[in-house]
């Protein structure tokens, strides 16, 4: 009998087991330090099975997750498992999306700042945490609609929420020249590991929410970084918001569900665009929204 691990989620634990379980021992704490897996004895088929080759299969499926060949690289296998678990989390809810966003938490509210790779999410998040603000994430979160049917909805209340995935803050080095001295110090003091040109930062429970922590989503800000732009926040219509968010959201289900979830999201949550040049200015503008 193999050991198994259970990842607690608002809708019950997702279980992971199999002969390759030890492959995630090193990579998961680095990639997803905000998770607290529970050690279990494997009594039934786990939701996800890891093999010695680094292959991960969902129970009942024959298609390996994020498969690009055998690997014993701890980060590669951890990334595959994290992708599988995020997909399972979204799939277990009726209305949910993976959002390519950082999220700033305020008093009973959360503002997501959304953008593709290079839009500045991680840099803005670092300036926010350097100033003592708390975030649900700096790169990816889950956005979900609570309607009273899911397990944790009574505590969250109705409406849209953002949920933390517990991912490590990660920055590309060298840091951009527009970083404030405080953000630069905050980053350099927390570097846990260098991998290629990236720095994974150590977990900071004061400023980072743990996996599963959620807050009401009161606004979504589309990031637009431009070389020389006056700082400006402008409202975005629902159609334009859907077009912008199609490529910045993920839904493991059919595209019909993705579209209908996106349509409900932009109808319920105000969307704005933030034009900015310096990450510190963008962080300051976002902090005034919560």
């Amino acid at each position, binding site marked *: 009998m193999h050991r198994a691990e259970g990842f607690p989620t608002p809708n019950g634990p997702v279980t992971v087991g199999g002969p390759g379980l030890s492959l995630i021992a090193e990579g998961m704490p680095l990639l997803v330090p905000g998770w607290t897996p529970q050690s279990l004895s494997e009594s039934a088929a786990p939701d996800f099975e890891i093999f010695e080759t680094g292959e991960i299969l969902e129970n009942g499926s024959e298609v390996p997750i994020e498969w690009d060949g055998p690997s014993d690289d701890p980060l590669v296998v951890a990334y595959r498992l994290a992708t599988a678990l995020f997909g399972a989390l979204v799939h277990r809810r009726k209305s949910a999306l993976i959002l390519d966003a950082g999220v700033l938490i305020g008093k009973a509210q959360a503002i997501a700042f959304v953008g593709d790779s290079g839009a500045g999410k991680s840099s803005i998040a670092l300036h926010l945490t350097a100033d003592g603000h708390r975030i649900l994430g700096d790169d990816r979160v889950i956005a979900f609609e609570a309607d009273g049917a899911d397990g944790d909805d009574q505590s969250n209340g109705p409406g849209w929420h953002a949920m933390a995935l517990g991912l490590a803050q990660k920055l590309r080095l060298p840091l951009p020249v527009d970083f404030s001295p405080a953000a630069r110090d905050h980053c350099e003091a927390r570097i846990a590991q260098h991998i290629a040109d990236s720095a994974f930062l150590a977990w900071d429970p004061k400023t980072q929410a743990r996996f599963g922590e959620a807050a009401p989503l009161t606004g979504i800000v589309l990031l637009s970084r431009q070389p020389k732009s006056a700082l400006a926040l402008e409202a975005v219509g*629902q159609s334009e918001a859907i077009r912008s968010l199609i490529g910045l959201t993920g839904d493991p289900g059919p595209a*019909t569900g993705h579209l209908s979830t996106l*349509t409900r999201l932009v109808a319920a949550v105000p969307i704005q665009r933030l034009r900015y040049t310096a990450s510190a200015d963008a962080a300051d503008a976002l902090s005034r929204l919560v």
Partner: protein
Amino acid sequence: MQAAYRRNPTTHMSEVEGDIFLVPDGGGEIFYLGDVGAGVWRLLDQERDASALREILIDAFPYIPAEQIAKDVDQLLADLIAAELISVVGSGDG
């Protein structure tokens, strides 16, 4: 006899602020239609051929050059068929 076109009845549609978003039955990419595209989609609630679509849209959008509308309609029909969002149903209303 020109080919006629009609919406595929299994296509999933959302209308937001007058714009149309479509998803083919069985999944695939989300398709966005702006002004002219949304106009074509609305007209395809019944069988129409390409020339009928062009004529109606040229009247409806006088500020867009007719040649541009004709080109856009032909390209849009090709894209919608390739994505299985509309079907070729035979002869049209002319």
